[in-house]
């Protein structure tokens, strides 16, 4: 009899724990940001963020960029993709991360972007130069691609067409059309396929552009993929992709290809949607990422 009671008790205890785990109630919202989420070293977003965020270090040196600091520390979490930043931030209000401004809109039910140095993370602010966290979106390709593959040339030109710019301007900032890119006319290309490979940050933009383009030009197929800017070069070189997507300035061997900047993207600093935090300064970000100093939410 005792055994039965014991067994039932155990089962009950375990199911309560399980149910507790399942519901995963998020509890109270934290009043302090204690943990920084970085992207993997080498990711375009991280390179840009680390380069842009500067502060005064512990030795009193001013204007030190994050990229010169050692960020692999116990107070930081490092994740591979934009999605993981969103997953983590949305589940825990004491975390802070950064993602492409273009990826914020789709996730406003989970996360929110905070002001940086008192400026809202909006396309207008980025364009006006008020919002300081921004980086270029680049496509790299072999020069001959534009001549050998009419679809590639046409798609590139489409970005600067009226429709293309309208899509782009929703979340990003347009830039001047680079030399060598033609003018887009709907319906000139009837078939073909191209592939774009590289940064995850560019993918939401490319998705919108490609879908609109394919709708206007039936018979064409545009695919895209990849998990980071670093993959772009290899994909273009081995021919598996016509365009490489890079969400930072091209560097190293990448510059040996043709580089076309297609947009400027803001980097949004994001926290849990219910977090009371509204504004962070570069110094606060610098201290959080480099030293683990918590940010108080007022």
């Amino acid at each position: 009899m005792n055994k039965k009671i014991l067994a039932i008790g155990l089962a009950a205890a375990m199911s309560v724990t399980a149910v507790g785990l399942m519901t995963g109630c998020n509890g109270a919202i934290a009043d302090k940001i204690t943990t920084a989420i970085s992207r993997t070293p080498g990711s375009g977003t991280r390179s840009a963020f680390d380069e842009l965020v500067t502060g005064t270090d512990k030795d009193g040196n001013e204007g030190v960029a994050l990229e010169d600091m050692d960020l692999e520390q116990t107070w930081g979490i490092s994740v591979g993709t934009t999605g993981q930043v969103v997953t983590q931030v949305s589940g825990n209000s004491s975390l802070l991360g950064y993602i492409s401004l273009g990826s914020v809109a789709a996730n406003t039910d989970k996360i929110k972007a905070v002001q940086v140095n008192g400026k809202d993370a909006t396309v207008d602010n980025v364009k006006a130069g008020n919002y300081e966290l921004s980086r270029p979106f680049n496509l790299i390709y072999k020069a001959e691609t534009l001549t050998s593959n009419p679809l590639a040339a046409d798609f590139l030109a489409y970005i600067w067409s009226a429709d293309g710019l309208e899509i782009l301007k929703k979340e990003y900032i347009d830039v001047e059309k680079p030399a060598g890119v033609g003018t887009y006319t709907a319906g000139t290309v009837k078939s073909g396929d191209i592939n774009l490979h590289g940064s995850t940050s560019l993918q939401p933009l490319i998705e919108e552009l490609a879908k609109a383009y394919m709708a206007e030009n039936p018979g064409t197929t545009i695919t895209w993929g990849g998990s980071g800017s670093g993959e772009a070069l290899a994909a273009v070189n081995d021919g598996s992709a016509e365009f490489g997507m890079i969400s930072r300035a091209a560097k190293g061997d990448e510059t040996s290809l043709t580089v076309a900047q297609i947009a400027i993207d803001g980097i949004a600093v994001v926290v849990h949607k219910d977090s009371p935090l509204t504004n962070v300064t570069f110094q606060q970000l610098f201290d959080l990422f480099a030293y683990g100093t918590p940010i108080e939410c007022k």
Partner: protein
Amino acid sequence: MTKAFSTKVKDTSAKILFIICACLSIFAVFGIICYILVASVPAFREVGFFQFLFGTKWQFNSDTYGILTMLCATLAVTILAVILGGVIGVFTAIFMVFWCPDRFHLRYEGSNKFVQKMVAWLNKINLRTIFDQIIKLLAGIPSVIYGYFGIIVLVQGGLVYMDPNYRGYGVLATCIVLAIMIIPTITSLTKNALEAVPAQYFEGALAMGNTKAQAVFRVVFPAARSGIISALILGIGRAVGETMAVQMVAGGTANFPTGLFIPICPLTVKINMEMGEVVPGSLHESALMATGFVLLVLVLIITLSVNFVPKEFKGKKGTRVLQGGGENVVYRKKGLIPEILKYCGMVCAGIVVISLAAIILFICINGIPNISWSFLFGGDGYEGHSLAPAFLTTFYVIIFTLIIALPLGIGAAIFLNEYAKPGSKFVKVIRTFIDTLSGVPSIVFGLFGYLLFVQIFGRSVFAGAFTMVLVILPTIIRSTEEALRAVPMELREASYGLGASKIRTIFKVVLPSAFPGIATAIVLSVGRIISESAALIYTAGMMAVASSSVSSAIDPTNAGSTLTVFMYSFFAEGLAYEEAYATAFVLLIITFVLNLIVYFIQKSVKKKR
């Protein structure tokens, strides 16, 4: 040419073919080692071998590479996970073998017909089989699902509140997720070891006046010791090589594992996170390959050490001198510890069932509401996300992989079982290599596929399929061999007696009788391919979900995402969580159905015998 001569030529050439198939696993292991070693030579040369192993800094901007922190992290979580998972797994196995009741023994005295029927139906359920299926299901769930279960339920729902920093990631989370993942391996192998202990030992102990618990823990358990140690070692191998799930809960920053909530970055995570960002041909790439190489060596050592587990009790050296003494011996009733252990077994089994229930509930609650016809099979015209391209790619990978792997695997099994002298050195070597190949972590397969097959085919379904051939080869060889071994000798003799040649006997008599075993091998392989992610991301590619289209997936020279990779993309892009859970649900159903198929195949075989 006489008929006899041509038969002989046929037989000999067939034999040579089979030998080649059998040796393939040797080539594969050496190929993997060599390719990855060659790719990592620049890193070892530039950084210095010892600097690489014992350096604590990894900064690719300044080309500084040291993996000590990651190595320590890997070792620490592995050890913790094996202690946790090992204890739970072994006790669960003990419970399953000795205490799991066969059936419910419900009684219902009332007159309600429906309740009567329900009770009768419940009493018919074979609990052991169900438990067995639960373990198999746990083993078949893709690791990406474990990872998200780890983040959302374990970390964000539980551990966060225990962490003074309100974070929850790190050592503890990693080792709990790993423990859950290795429990099925350890449980099923321990179960086999326990069942292999002769029943006479158990009976003998009972007849001495032992309680059941005493007999189990004092006689049967020690007798199964070597099998259990092997199970634990294989569990260690799996834990060391696990990538996707660990990546999601480890935290990802390279720290020494100095506390339970310290974020860490095990070797596999480092490779997987940075492979996407690497510039080809750079020292960075080479350093990642070198990390893979260290991982591979680690796993090889672990897998090979199974061979050094002593198989049976041999007696201690020296003789014992009795000292005598002790006149009034009083026998007492003893056995508290075994009783406690028995309850441990029940608790552990409970934990396993609850973990599974939690994972399944987690997937179903989040997944089912998002399932729709157009989500599953919507073609290119469909506006939202659709799994159709992923189904297509998965199908391709399965078909191409099986087309290549089945003949090779069956050939190897035929050689091992029909041609080779049992117990010869050559056979032992081949077996060792097959075991080694099955122990190689999937991320290492991924690196190898990236180095070899992607160079040949480009990032494509073909590259993925060739990589998967190596992954599933050991499974196919093993299950086919088992099936061949079960074919009675008399059948072969009867065929020889009628004057049939060996090759004819094999193809006309032996293989058809072994068909259910081969079918099992196929189903198991399909399960493995479907749940695989790390080995496919670098080879078959990871498409952005929105860009995946049926028209692109229809061409197998294109890159494509299988279902599991597709689900990972959903999560990774962070744009469509609902669809990710729905995909997880689809995967769960597929795993479940595959397990059922295996179960029915084996049941039908048992019935026939």
